């Protein structure tokens, strides 16, 4: 397999890459960016990550073999890690996983050139800002205790299930689970709203994500300005200690602004 090693800026290379190679595009950056040689991209083995420049903007790309499937865990992680590392330093418009174009020339002619101005404007907008994702999840036992304490019907169903053999209580168990799901959904709605309001002073934007688990308490992406990041992280710490063992709070980021770039 001949890896065509393109150097940065070689967008008008005279020779076409081999037919079995295509151009994986990670994201759009400002043109004045360098990428270190040991950056690892998608593919097996991963090819060198390079930069294709056009005007004020550039695309972060690497060659991929077209005859091998993409999407192993390493590919997914490589895609995000590359973009997130870049986003920690420079503005980045992240592409969704799996964007593959035929050639570097096509990246310039069909992606960078026609959309140069809108990409450049978007990069200016997100300059100095990165994304964080807050994932909060109710701990199982505390939230179930809460539900039982607050809801008489749930307590009755539970008692009935305990008294009768399992074979005859399927309906009760389904009803109990449904009730718990509804009550947790109501808690999630309230807690998500509280989280969004609480962090508003520290953030330039918030996007509520779909829950990724039935015990999610909040799943929100925030756009945070770099100079307010410390305050934001401090506020997350306060929330974490406030919620204590009731809710597990995780903060992901800084990452590229996936939730804030829209097509």
């Amino acid at each position, binding site marked *: 397999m001949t890896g065509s090693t393109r150097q940065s800026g070689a967008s008008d290379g005279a020779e076409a890459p081999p037919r079995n190679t295509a151009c994986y595009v990670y*994201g759009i950056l400002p043109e004045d960016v360098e990428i270190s040689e040991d950056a690892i991209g998608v593919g097996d083995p991963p090819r060198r990550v390079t930069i294709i420049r056009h005007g004020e903007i550039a695309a972060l790309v690497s060659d991929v073999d077209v005859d091998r499937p993409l999407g192993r865990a390493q590919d*997914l992680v490589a895609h995000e890690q590359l973009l997130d590392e870049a986003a920690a330093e420079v503005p980045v418009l992240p592409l*969704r996983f799996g964007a593959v174009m035929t050639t570097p020339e096509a990246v310039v002619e069909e992606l960078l050139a*026609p959309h140069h101005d809108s990409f450049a404007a978007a990069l200016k907008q997100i300059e100095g800002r990165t994304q964080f994702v807050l994932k909060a999840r109710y701990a199982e036992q505390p939230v179930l205790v809460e539900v039982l304490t607050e809801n008489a019907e749930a307590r009755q169903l539970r008692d009935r299930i305990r008294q009768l053999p399992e074979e005859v209580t399927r309906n009760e168990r389904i009803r*109990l689970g449904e009730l718990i799901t509804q009550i947790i959904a109501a808690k999630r709605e309230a807690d998500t709203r509280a989280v969004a309001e609480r962090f508003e002073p520290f953030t330039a934007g918030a996007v509520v994500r779909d829950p990724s688990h039935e015990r999610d308490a909040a799943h929100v992406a925030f756009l945070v300005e770099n100079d307010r990041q410390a305050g934001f992280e401090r506020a997350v710490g306060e929330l974490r200690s406030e919620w204590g063992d009731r809710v597990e709070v995780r903060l992901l980021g800084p990452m590229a602004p996936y939730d804030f770039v829209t097509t």
Partner: protein
Amino acid sequence: MTVAVPPAGGGGLPGRSSGSGLADVIDTILDKGLVIDAYVRVSLVGIEILTIDVRVVIASVDTYLRFAEAVNRLDLASQQPGLPGLLSSAPQSIARGKTKGMVQGVLEAAGDKLQDLRESYAEEPAPRTRRRRREED
């Protein structure tokens, strides 16, 4: 400006500093981000993309029965809300469990099609493998 990108950990999943795992990555990069197809319709390559269907079906009988079972196991008498030490490592194992269903599809645009694929699996509690191929030369 220079972006210093350290090499990703070889082999399995690199331990990300923020403590995110594969499930977090999937939440972020499979249905968020710019969709190239909206800009470019000509020269995308149809590469076979393996993706992992992790859409969580929250309102399902399986979920309900799991909650009921968990409540059944609870011993209310010996517990106060928020009792420390009872927090299981459940989130981790569940996050892993979610990644078992493989959906194979050609990604023409990394985007809507994939989203459709994933949504079409949303009703099915037990994900399975499917393959779709499309030539685009």
